[in-house]
């Protein structure tokens, strides 16, 4: 495989840095059987630095497809520390089943991202299916903040 540029970013799985290499976006098969590109804009993370507030900055990660739709993760950091994790965007198609799952799993992932930072863990057993897409968007948000 040809050498690709390396980007370092933080990740949901604790204090690790994820090396992102340029790859073609994977296809995701949705529950209904249709396919969408895995990442609408692979480098679409947007940072909103606010230097005047003691190093508190926030950014929204790239929009990624997950099993039930599209989401992006928004993070707020203070210095090098993650202080808030939430959703920047969510479109689960309005399906009651996916909305039910989202209401359960997304707060879980937000909380786990915060925990992973302080617990120094590399994964969660018994965690939900949404987690990989969530982690991917989280990484890009942190990356855009230089973390």
């Amino acid at each position, binding site marked *: 495989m040809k050498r690709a540029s390396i980007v370092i970013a933080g990740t949901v799985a604790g*204090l690790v*840095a994820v090396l992102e290499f340029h790859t073609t976006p994977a296809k995701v098969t949705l529950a209904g059987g249709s396919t969408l590109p895995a990442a609408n804009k692979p480098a679409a993370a947007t940072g909103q630095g606010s230097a005047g507030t003691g190093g508190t900055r926030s950014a929204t990660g790239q929009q990624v497809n997950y*099993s039930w739709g599209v989401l992006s993760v928004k993070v707020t950091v203070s210095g090098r520390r993650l202080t808030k994790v939430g959703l920047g965007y969510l479109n689960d198609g309005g399906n009651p089943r996916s909305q039910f799952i989202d209401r*359960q799993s997304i*707060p879980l992932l937000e909380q*786990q991202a915060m925990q992973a930072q302080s617990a120094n863990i590399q994964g969660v057993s018994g965690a*939900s299916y949404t987690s*990989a897409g969530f982690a*991917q968007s989280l990484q890009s948000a942190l990356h855009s903040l230089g973390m």
Partner: protein
Amino acid sequence: MTQPVVRELVHVMGTVITIDVFPIEVTERPDFTAARNVLERANEAFSTWRPDSPVSRMRRGEITAADAPPEVSAVVAACTIARELSGGWFDPWAMPGGFDPTGYVKGWAAQHALAELAGLPIAGALVNAAGDIASLGTQPSGAPFRIGIADPADPRRLAEIVELTACIATSGAYERGSHLIDPRSGKPAARVASASVVGPDLGLADALATAVAVAGADGLAFIEPIADYEALVIGHDGRRQSTSHFPIASQPGPGW
């Protein structure tokens, strides 16, 4: 404090499997092709919804395990062993709709994908199949991988943290797509809120976690004599019980 990890996502078996590789030295992206191929082949062979998959043909009685591709025969044999080890609490032959090895296959496929990474110049690797995790090696620092177990009463929190030497699987009725069926009644049942099993092989750990989640704390009795496997159950009342050597690293602190 930060350490590098290279991540690959594979969409198979109705979920996303995450492959994390912890390189000794960062040079170029490792080749994940072989690991991906293992997962995609398993997805084809073991699909219960693709009518032409070997497993679907077995379910309809068109072929036997002996006629199936070698990996399907191997899984059938492993399921037989898992059924015996679990005293019948894991029984793919007792699922509604016929033989369904899903409870074994996801872990089995993750374990085989991990094996494809063994030749890389890495400190360690993790294959995480929706919370069932196979590992190889250690963190680059030499420290063991640390994995949180989601608290079934409040999955936003961690119930425990384990230091992993190989694999961990967790089953509970709170998971999406969890169909914990009591093989004795053919009906959904989970006598504890969650069951986690650690051990050298993720396929077997996955099957045993399913068995213990259905059997409840009494299931610890059939795990105890299995060499190198340990189990932890969290009851519907939050009570924890485990086999003698379940590798809890530390109690999560207040606020967890």
